[in-house]
């Protein structure tokens, strides 16, 4: 029976995680950085008075996302409803997690995407890692996230980054590789250095595709908020999670609808920026 004893994979991973927790300094500094970003975002959003927010964001939507009256009205009514339901502070907390995750994903993902587009070897190595990040059940990496970063908002951000970053990386890579070879040849033929080629030709031409990736990243981070609340991340997600525990259908739906409203606003806004830049 035990001709092939089962591999002690679980032990190995535990040993690895144990060993990694020794690298306190690294994780502590990452933790501090995320905490700083979160506080900064919350402070900025808290400074803006709620009425200004409720009226200002629809105006931004109107002027930057294609001058759509219906969408503008939706943003106004949606924000008003969230405030009316008493979810404003929770929404700000949730937004700070989503935005922090997005900022980190973009700051890390775009350079990795560029690197991938420049080297086939890197692409071959990174692609399966991205698949892994996207398909591994989120609960599985919540456990080590807690081990490294403790309980709270920060591991929630980390989990959102792991789950949300792949589209930014993939689409940056794709966008740059898609640039037609003749345009690249033209850039070379006129004597561009490789950084001139990147900043003056490849990135501008890949912009729409990269923005689509960032949009995806925001949406995926948002979808992580409920799961992140299981390890102590506050916000709308936490209200949903609590409602699940109490079998509170009405309360759950209230918070759930608020999340959907935020999701639609974020999606349309970023999609609108994309459209604007394209024209």
């Amino acid at each position, binding site marked *: 029976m035990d001709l092939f004893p089962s591999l002690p994979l679980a032990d190995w991973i535990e040993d690895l995680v144990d060993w990694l927790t020794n690298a306190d300094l690294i994780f502590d500094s990452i933790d501090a950085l995320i905490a700083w970003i979160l506080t900064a975002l919350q402070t900025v959003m808290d400074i803006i008075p709620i009425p200004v927010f409720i009226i200002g964001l629809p105006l931004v939507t109107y002027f930057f996302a294609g001058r759509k009256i219906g969408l503008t009205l939706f943003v106004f009514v949606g924000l008003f409803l969230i405030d009316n339901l008493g979810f404003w502070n929770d929404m700000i907390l949730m937004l700070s997690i989503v935005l922090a995750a997005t900022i980190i994903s973009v700051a890390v993902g775009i350079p990795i995407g560029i690197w991938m587009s420049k080297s086939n070897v890197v692409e071959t190595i990174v692609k399966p890692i991205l698949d892994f990040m996207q398909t591994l059940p989120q609960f599985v990496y919540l456990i080590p996230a807690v081990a490294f970063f403790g309980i709270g908002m920060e591991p929630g951000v980390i989990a959102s980054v792991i789950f949300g970053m792949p589209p930014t990386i993939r689409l940056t890579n794709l966008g740059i590789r898609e640039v037609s070879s*003749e345009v690249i040849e*033209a850039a070379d*033929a*006129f*004597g561009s*250095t490789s950084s001139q080629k990147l900043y*003056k030709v490849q990135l*501008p031409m890949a912009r729409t595709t990269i923005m689509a990736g960032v949009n995806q990243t925001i949406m995926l981070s948002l979808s992580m908020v409920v799961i992140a609340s299981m390890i102590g991340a506050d916000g709308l997600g936490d209200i949903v999670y609590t409602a699940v525990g109490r079998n509170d259908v009405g309360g759950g739906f209230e918070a759930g609808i608020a999340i959907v409203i935020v999701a639609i606003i974020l999606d349309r806004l970023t999609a609108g920026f994309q459209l604007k830049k394209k024209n």
Partner: protein
Amino acid sequence: MFGKRPERAIPMLRDNKSKADILEETGLTVGVNKASFEVNDGEVFVIMGLSGSGKSTLVRLLNRLIEPTSGAVYLNEQNLAEMEEKTLRSVRRRDMSMVFQKFGLFPFRTIQSNVEYGLEVQGMGREDRGKKATDALSLVGLDGYEKMLPEELSGGMQQRVGLARALANDPEILLMDEAFSALDPLIRKEMQDELMDLQENMKKTIIFITHDLDEALRIGDRITIMKDGAIVQIGTPEEILTNPANDYVEKFVEDVDRSKVYTAQNVMTRPETVQPEREGPRVALQRMRNSGISSIYAIKRDRELLGIVHADELSQLVDEGIDDFRGVIHNDVLRVEMETPVTEVIDLIKNSKVPAAVVQDGKLRGIIVRSSVLGALSGGEVNINGSVSEPTSR
């Protein structure tokens, strides 16, 4: 040489193995092989060949967009093939510019900033490069389009932008890779003429890639013909036309195979004729002068072919005051039938000074000049009403 570890194939090339053999043995594709030539300062050097002949690869070896596996490219005693990155960049910035088949414009940049690109990467200041770009744009006749985006312009205009961009940094050498091939025929002719006009003043060294024989003949000072990555013939358009290397005609026979399908009637053009029964030597001379030819076919009213008369003999008659030129009609003209295959026609007219007459039941239907045969084989259409602009004899 394309493929992995391309240096493997170099000894095989030295042993004169064929492209197909090398592909089979090593999986490597020979791009360009043993293409040695010199381009003179200020000349338009056309490289012609069918697709896959290596002409586009060759031009990219000149500015090292493709790294040569082996060999050298000299520009004023500097070997580009062994140059450092930095020196190469400065050569690309100052000495040679390139114009692309599908224009290669930057779609998100305005016309103005597209033209400025080459100057911008050199680090030239905004004002200077703006002025140079405006000058280059007006050179190609695009004043007033500065703020538009490439996609808002027609193909012909986009290629003018491509040309302006290449001229903006005032290079010695222009590399033009099938620059006009994506344009429709009328615009293409227009651009060819304009390029020639510009060249009158600029006297750049232009290396022009094309697959179109007509284009090559129109603009080339010298023409190189490539096949399978190797050069088959280099010569002036005149030499190419009057003395095509055997391989050259053969190539069309093999690769295009039009000559087996085409017969004399496909490649004939409408002749200028005179009717000695009612017209005199003055009329004949006038007609020849108008169409720029020095011999003309004489026919009867019902188009029965009588023969050919030459300008010099006619003017002699005029001098002597003789009004009937039936005495100087030469009967020994080259006659072919409507159904004669073009392959035979090529052999017949190769050594003939005057065009061949296409006859049907003894009546003149058309004439065949050398260039129209070659033009037809290279893919051009011969219009029966088309201008018989080529001098029929010299």
